[in-house]
């Protein structure tokens, strides 16, 4: 079983693992819950198309908020006798403490080390020992914990997630052990591999200006070692509150039953005062930056270009989703055709917004990247010139109808693939992030119409401002190991 595909992007920062027509849910009043809050005013994600425009594939969304502020989203799909439980906390690695780089991710590991009624690793046993799959991941704007399980295990998992939302019970021995595990994780994904952290970890640090967006979020080993048990409890107290979280259950379940369980296990967890987000904004970039990184383990050079993305939910944001299809996705894409098929500079061009997730599951400033591996016989300048050849026509003229039509079809298909990711976990991911960031999980049903509503003029306007060469950072990776 060999794979000769180029280095696939390592989806690191995971905790543990390397790895039918649904009847619509019956809407019913939330048991003992507060009123459903209106979508937040700045939820621009919902404004691009009118709210009554229906997608071809509609996701059932039943949502309410508990008295303690926990946002709940239920989405029924009886395709298979399985379901996903996902708990998202509104704390990403962006806003971890300044002298504790990598802490948000280290903390995620600690969530598996014991809570009031569950000892170390017992949460894992509860899931895997009942036939399921569990993981946690730390991302720019959230940390998630999710399980895909046979449908009979739902109550057990809700109990377990509630137990660790209520409080952690961890020891110095657990912390020391997980500091070792996380350092091993950084070694295997970054330090002991060629192109370690390339480009997902490396490039944001070079392209961004604001520390929150530009620090080493996997963590300096020294900072990881410096973390204390007090840091762990303080972080939990600050961010891991029900009013700073969203709970999604999607898949095969009985709506009335699940609401009763959620009420029973989560309702009594007290809310907490969560500090406001710091200023995460990036200044508008007005000059192109060129950076070089050296890699002593690599044998071939690599190159990435990173552009700041338009704000999530703006019209230009939707146009970028189409530009992604036009430029990078598939062998018909402009960058593939120019760099691979015509010029033979590389075998593959990867890229997209938010390489640690997707177009939709982040909140703050983001980069759109394209990257490739090449031979030293071609200079970074030559490659960037080829990239410009592919991009500049999109800035100069409106895109032709055939290209836009293909991009729309691909975008729709990619959106479906995203929903199905990891045994259906992808659907829960979108529901949770739209609940967490926009207070409007039903906005997922406007993704498909929004993608289809993007016009050639909007694409051109977006490319003019956001695919400006002066909005980008070019990062060249140079092998320095010899051989």
């Amino acid at each position, binding site marked *: 079983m*060999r794979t000769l595909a180029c280095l696939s992007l390592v989806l690191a920062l995971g905790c*543990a693992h390397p790895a039918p027509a649904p009847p619509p849910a019956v809407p019913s009043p939330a048991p003992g819950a507060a009123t459903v809050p209106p979508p937040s005013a700045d939820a621009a994600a919902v404004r691009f198309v009118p709210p009554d425009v229906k997608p071809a594939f509609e996701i059932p969304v039943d949502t309410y908020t508990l008295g303690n502020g926990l946002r709940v989203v239920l989405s029924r799909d009886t395709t298979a006798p399985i379901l996903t439980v996902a708990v998202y906390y509104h704390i990403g690695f962006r806003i971890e403490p300044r002298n504790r780089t990598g802490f948000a991710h280290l903390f995620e590991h600690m969530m598996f080390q014991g809570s*009031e009624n569950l000892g170390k690793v017992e949460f894992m046993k509860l899931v895997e020992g009942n036939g399921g*799959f569990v993981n946690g991941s730390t991302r720019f704007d959230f940390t998630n914990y999710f399980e895909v399980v*046979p449908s009979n295990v739902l109550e057990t998992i809700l109990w377990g997630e509630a137990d660790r939302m209520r409080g952690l019970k961890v020891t110095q021995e657990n912390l020391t052990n997980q500091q070792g595990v996380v350092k091993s994780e950084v070694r295997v994904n970054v330090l002991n591999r060629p192109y370690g952290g390339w480009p997902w970890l490396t490039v944001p640090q070079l392209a961004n200006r604001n520390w929150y967006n530009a620090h080493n979020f996997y963590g300096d080993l020294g900072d990881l070692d410096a973390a204390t048990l007090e840091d762990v409890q303080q972080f939990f107290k600050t961010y891991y509150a029900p009013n700073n979280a969203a709970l999604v259950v999607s898949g095969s379940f009985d709506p009335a039953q699940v609401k009763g369980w959620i009420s029973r296990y989560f309702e009594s967890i*007290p809310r907490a005062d969560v500090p406001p987000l710091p200023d995460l904004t990036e200044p508008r970039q007005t000059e192109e930056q060129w950076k070089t990184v050296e890699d002593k383990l690599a044998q071939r050079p690599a190159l990435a270009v990173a552009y700041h993305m338009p704000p999530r939910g703006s019209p230009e944001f939707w146009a970028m989703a189409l530009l992604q299809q036009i430029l990078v996705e598939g062998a018909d894409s402009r960058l593939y055709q120019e760099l691979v098929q015509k010029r033979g500079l590389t075998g593959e061009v990867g890229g997209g917004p938010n390489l640690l997730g997707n177009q939709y599951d982040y909140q703050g400033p983001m980069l759109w990247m394209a990257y490739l591996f090449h031979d030293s016989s071609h200079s970074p300048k030559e490659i960037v010139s080829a990239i410009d050849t592919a991009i500049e026509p999109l800035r100069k003229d409106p895109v032709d109808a055939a290209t836009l039509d*293909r991009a729309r079809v691909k975008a729709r298909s990619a959106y479906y693939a995203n929903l199905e990711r990891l*045994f259906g976990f992808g659907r829960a991911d979108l529901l949770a992030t739209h609940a967490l960031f926009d207070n409007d999980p039903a906005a997922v049903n406007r993704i498909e119409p929004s993608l289809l509503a993007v016009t050639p003029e909007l694409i051109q306007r977006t490319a003019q401002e956001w695919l400006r060469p002066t909005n980008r950072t070019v990062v060249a990776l140079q092998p320095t190991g010899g051989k």
Partner: protein
Amino acid sequence: MSRTVLGLALLATGLSLAAPETPPTPGPTPPFELPTTTVFTLKNGLKVTLVPYGAIPKTRVSLALQLGNADEAAHQTGLSDLMGKLLLQGTTSKSAVQLAEAAAQLGGELEVNVRADQTAVEIECLGDSTVEAIRLVAEVARTPAFPTAELARLRGDLQREVAIQRSQPQPLAEEAFARAIYGDHPYGRILPVAADVERFTLEQAKQLWTRFAGANRAHLYVVGRFDPAAVRAAIEEGFGGWAKAKGAPRPKPALKGGRRVLLVDRPGAVQSTVRFGLPAISPTSPDYIPLVVTDALVGGSFISRIMGNLREKHGYAYSPRSVLGVHPGVGTWVEAADVTTKDTAASVREIINEVERLRKEPPDEAELAGIRKWVAGNFVLRNSTRGGIVTQLRFVDLHGLPADWLRTFVQRVEAVTPADVTRVTRKYLDPQRMTLVVVGDRKVVEDSLKQFGPVKVEAPR
């Protein structure tokens, strides 16, 4: 801490329902039924399996061929991969870009996935484009252009991929382990060699395809949302006239077990990449299911013993895993781990300790019950996606397993007893017969590895 106090206060006033202190017991496992399949064979021998499945309007079309790296001669390692790249460079009626645009218009991308035993021409498209997707796959399979103009570029791409693979410790460890077990058999040649790739010709790649790819050596799987009647007609039309191919018998592998210690030097490496394993069995063996369960218990799951030891007890490794690797008629068991350099020998000792412990004492029923559920539950998950369903069906067909193999999988897993685990561990997992491969910093680890046997330093390729 103050939140905990607040929680207790609420409980004391009786305002809240107390959550129980032990996890609620799961209800009975829901019945799981495999999706219904329709199987038929065209006159020219092409086997077809149709599986209507899912709510999301997409379909996977996968044409699996009895052609793979196992059919490569000596000094041809990677020729199938070059052939796979060439297949996407156009047909007699479409250029490469026209082919790519046609696939994109269906919401998909054509892929040729080359593996040791099989090659698949595949596309995942929107459901209402299934008929067109079948036509496109048929066109690629039947009328590939193999354009000379693309050869040098694709050979260069392959060279670059190989150079990148050879700079990574895990592929180097896989290569050394496969060579130790399978020797000169193609299964033992995991990575191409640059000098070989340089000499590949268009004619060689084309010949490989024409010799092995034909209706009688292929199986078409269509899984997803589609109109079965229209799909059937498209298959008849697209593949009905496809000729047969001769093929050629594959050499039979002779596996070599036994303790050897192979070291691939990677100066300055902060981790050692370890492979420790031996020849095992193929899925046709009656002991296969007990060994699958045993593997999950010893190293194949997160709740396995080696994971608990290397990661959760010692912090030596992030993601140690054991794997049963199989080819038709043969198989291996191997533990794979990337461990801190200074803990290399200690990690190997712990792996040996865990296997030895399982050879001595049967697992208790509760531990085994959790593992059985994990194996069964994962089987359900694997059969809950289009790609997973294709993989499962291909597995059964590749290994020539009985028709009810998938249907009875869960019940056979549930029947595995602690005594079975002890028996198969003793029979198949003998640490004394395991080969150790370490890719790491020789000057730091070599001496400590001598306790496992004489260390042979592998030359770089």
